[in-house]
């Protein structure tokens, strides 16, 4: 596998994980932007622990999840019941604060970044394949978790609360508890994605964990469709990949292209490209009995 293909495939998985970390809280209309900060914290912690303390990847990966969850526990008890706009602004503030603190910390390389993260295997090419497998396995595990959630009582409750919170509460749904759970889950996934990103790139730059990256994720989520987890899964490779095919001069304008795509989709197809209705139709089509000749 070529190096560029490896980066494309692995980073696509990381972006899908990150978009799902936004998708889950948005099931309750909460734009939980804090996940970018969770990702940044986990990535830098991974970079520091492996380069300075020499910790192995196998220990750092679960630690990333734990770190994502722990940092979320400081914030989520409040944002679980806060108005959607407050949740979004708390997230944006945390992104700014995290970037600012990393940029001013010498142990993390300051504005220059943190480099020299080792491969997860002595043989770099075997390390890449191993990491690819681990990343996609994490993706599968998260997908399975989301599938279980979607079919559970909580998933159905989230769908009701998305449309009408009062209706959900009158049906004995504890919206605050549900919101707490999905935001915590989102931050935990972001912690895992942060560690995977650090070991994929093997170098970290604080500017990455910024509003620009948030723009990429928002485009994947809203263009793909926020009503099903399939939207981000199908659209992430396209959103992430198409700009790579553009001429070099246009590549630096990709965020503008994302923004235009995001606004256009919200105006023309508010639920995104992959909707529940579309999935229902496809399922019905596949289940339709074939007529014998």
């Amino acid at each position, binding site marked *: 596998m070529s190096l560029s293909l490896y980066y494309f495939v692995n980073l696509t998985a990381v972006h899908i994980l990150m978009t799902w970390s936004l998708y889950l809280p948005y099931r309750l209309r909460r734009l939980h932007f804090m996940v970018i900060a969770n990702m940044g914290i986990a990535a830098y912690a991974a970079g520091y622990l492996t380069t300075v303390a020499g910790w192995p990847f196998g220990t750092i990966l679960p630690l990333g999840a734990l770190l994502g969850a722990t940092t979320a526990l400081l914030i989520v008890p409040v944002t679980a019941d806060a108005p*959607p706009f407050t949740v979004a602004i708390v997230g944006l503030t945390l992104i700014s604060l995290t970037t600012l603190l990393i940029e001013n910390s010498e142990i993390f390389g300051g504005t220059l970044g943190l480099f020299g993260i080792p491969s997860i295997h002595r043989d770099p090419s075997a390390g890449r394949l191993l990491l690819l497998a681990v990343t996609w396995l994490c993706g599968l595990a998260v997908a399975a978790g989301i599938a279980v959630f979607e079919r559970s009582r909580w998933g159905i409750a989230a769908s009701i609360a998305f449309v009408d919170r009062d209706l959900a509460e009158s049906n004995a749904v504890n919206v605050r508890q549900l919101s707490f759970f999905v935001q915590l889950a989102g931050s935990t996934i972001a912690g895992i994605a942060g560690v995977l990103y650090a070991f994929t790139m093997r170098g970290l730059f604080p500017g990455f964990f910024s509003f620009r990256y948030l723009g990429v994720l928002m485009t994947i989520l809203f263009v793909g469709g926020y009503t099903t987890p399939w939207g981000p899964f199908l659209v992430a490779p396209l959103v992430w990949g198409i700009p790579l095919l553009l001429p070099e001069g246009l590549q630096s304008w990709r965020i503008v292209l994302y923004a235009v795509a995001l606004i256009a989709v919200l105006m023309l197809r508010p639920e995104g490209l992959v909707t529940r209705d579309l999935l229902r139709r496809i399922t019905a089509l596949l289940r339709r009995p074939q007529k014998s000749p």
Partner: protein
Amino acid sequence: MTTLIAQLVNGVSLGSVYILLVTGFNLVLLVARVVHISYPHTVVLSMYAAWYGMSLADNSITAGVLAAVFTGILVNAVMAPIFARFSHRGVQADINSTMVVSLAIGLAIVELLSHGFNNGFPVSFSGFFRAGGTTFGTDVLHLSVAHLLALILSVGLTASLFFLLYRSAWGRRARAVAEDALGAAIAGVPVALTQRYSFLIGGTLAGVSAIILAALLGFASSTLADLVAIKALAVSIIAGLGHLVGGIAIALALGILEALAQGYLGGTWANAVALVVLLVVLLLRPKGLFGSRL
């Protein structure tokens, strides 16, 4: 003591800019029900327009001022119909959608500033804008023209806005729409037109804020947009979304806090202190100190 007084003066001036920013943001939020996250980005875009206008017109301040105000109004006028697409029957906007769209517009503006002007480098203002004008005062109290400009324009424009809101026909319509858009529509108030005017007034405030910010800072950069945005939006939440008077008080307090932190801790940590304080208050009072008007 001298540092304290100097930083208090700086703080009040900076707070004046935040007042204009938050007032413009709240106006659009109250009347058009649009969470205009990219409003501070419009301000920074207007700063760049002022720089561009001045560089075209041999550093003419008039050209810079006109370019900034024109850009503020134009950008808001272009955005108004986009946001209008997300209002149901023209009276109630989908706040989450407007927030996402506004965020996308903000990202596009930052990208435009990063690539489209001065090869991506921060722009520096010349002449009056560089040093904030002549400095005068006593041994203890130093004032620059920029400080006075910030105070006078902020007080003048905020007072004018309140006069407009409480003493004009448009103000009555705007308050009716803010109170109950559907009821106002039934009573014959042209809701869409009133909302568009709120965008134009917000644009004017954005242009003037850009001029004051340019005079106070002497430069503009693409990263400034996001930082200003966070602070302005956090102030509006802490005050209580849509609470005009609360927004003024909190904006002034933030300006003073930031300037004091800058005086005693240095530039970078001043931002960190401001963000931490905003975060703590947001977490303690997520619905605002003065109560939301939404």
